[in-house]
């Protein structure tokens, strides 16, 4: 199971069926604080860098950008009523959406787990 990361603190996991699941890291949820609202994207294609989600914590709103170009196939509807899942299990039940990358190689250009660990320590 390949996991990749972005400098915007998203994680991407390549599933067995070639679909990529996207969420935010534990570091990111901790920095944001308690989430009270998550606005998820529409089911369509987005280009890398396009805004796809909005996270509102008790403190502030933050935008989530599409990490790599592709088509969003499924969103985690449970977050509408239970945004706290992102805080409780950012790499599990707190996932945001599943997508099909436009370019399957794009994932390889992102940070590895080690690179990300180094990045957040810097």
């Amino acid at each position, binding site marked *: 199971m390949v996991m990749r990361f972005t400098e915007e603190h998203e994680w991407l996991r390549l599933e067995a069926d070639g679909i990529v699941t996207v969420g935010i890291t534990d570091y990111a949820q901790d920095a944001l604080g308690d989430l*009270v609202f998550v*606005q998820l994207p529409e089911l369509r294609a987005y280009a890398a860098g396009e805004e796809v989600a909005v996270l509102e914590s008790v403190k502030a*709103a933050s935008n989530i950008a599409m990490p790599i170009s592709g088509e969003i196939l499924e969103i985690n509807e449970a977050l509408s009523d239970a945004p706290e899942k992102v805080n409780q299990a950012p790499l599990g039940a707190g996932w945001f959406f599943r997508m099909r990358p436009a370019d399957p190689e794009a994932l390889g250009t992102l940070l590895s787990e080690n690179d990300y660990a180094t990045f957040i320590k810097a």
Partner: protein
Amino acid sequence: MTESLLKTPLHALHLELGARMVPFAGYDMPVQYPLGVLKEHQHTRAQAGLFDVSHMGQILLEGEAAAEALETLVPVDIIDLPTGMQRYALFTNENGGILDDLMVANLGDCLYLVVNAACKTQDLAHLEQYIGDRCQVNPQFERGLLALQGPSAVNVLTRLAPEVAEMTFMQVRRINVLGYPCIVSRSGYTGEDGFEISVPAEGAEKLARALLAEPDVQPIGLGARDSLRLEAGLCLYWHDMDTGTTPVEASLVWAVSRVRREGNGRAGGFPGAERIFTQQREGVARQRVGLLVQERVPVREGAELVDAQGAVIGRVTSGGFGPSLGAPVAMGYVDSAYAALDTSLFAMVRNKPVAVKVARMPFVPQRYYRG
């Protein structure tokens, strides 16, 4: 980065407790502890929360004429404020605008003021300039100030100072706590029963540790302080009021004492009285209202308020998620034509209209102890 920021007497304790620190009004302050803002908020409403508010300005006014002198700066009855009582007040300017809001207590031999952290230097200068010749203005900025808020606060504080159990809302007493000469008021900024305890700097940490040792008490940061006061419908200076808003526009007419109002015994005699009286007679073009958000998305400070046709009729001045209400809440200023309860409006959030309704404040019931 924190080098230039001031520290309260509890700074080391905040770090020890794992607080996340942020700059606030020139101080390095805890915005949250490991518990997190939501749970800190809920804990305060369920049991008791301890807040470090030592950054706020404490000032003593001493001398025979102190009450009479202070009345020239606030539209509030200070002369007849009974010994042992506290009252909410506002410093106004010549236009009736609000320079700061504050608490004034009569300690018998002096007046005890608590002003906002961000305004304390200017408030001190204001007091010295206008009434410094009539009373002694004695800043106590180095003192600690702790707020213990929530339904368990009285039981907790009674263990250290039994006499606080007899106090009711807005009463103030000098009480020795752990041997330190404290000023204790039964008031706060959360809508809950609770106390504010002014303590000499050298006793602040010992007192905080003693309170935190009680199982019902958790340390609470500025994040939950803000959501608690917002649910309680209480104003935050610079946000919900400033020099550009009068007490009438800020829906704080209740804070203008009866005896200081037009036609009454000590009417006027404070800066901006004419403008405030005119507004009370003739009404105001805009006023502060509470807003219940009809969707789950938080509506925050700065969001424009529009009517059904999309015309801008106001602006949100405070907003966020209300953890006890389980929904977002906000307050803001609207054209007076839209200020009636239950008026349907829209707040623009990321260019999309979000339905809001003008609502009564506080958003959650006040639970002050009135005896």
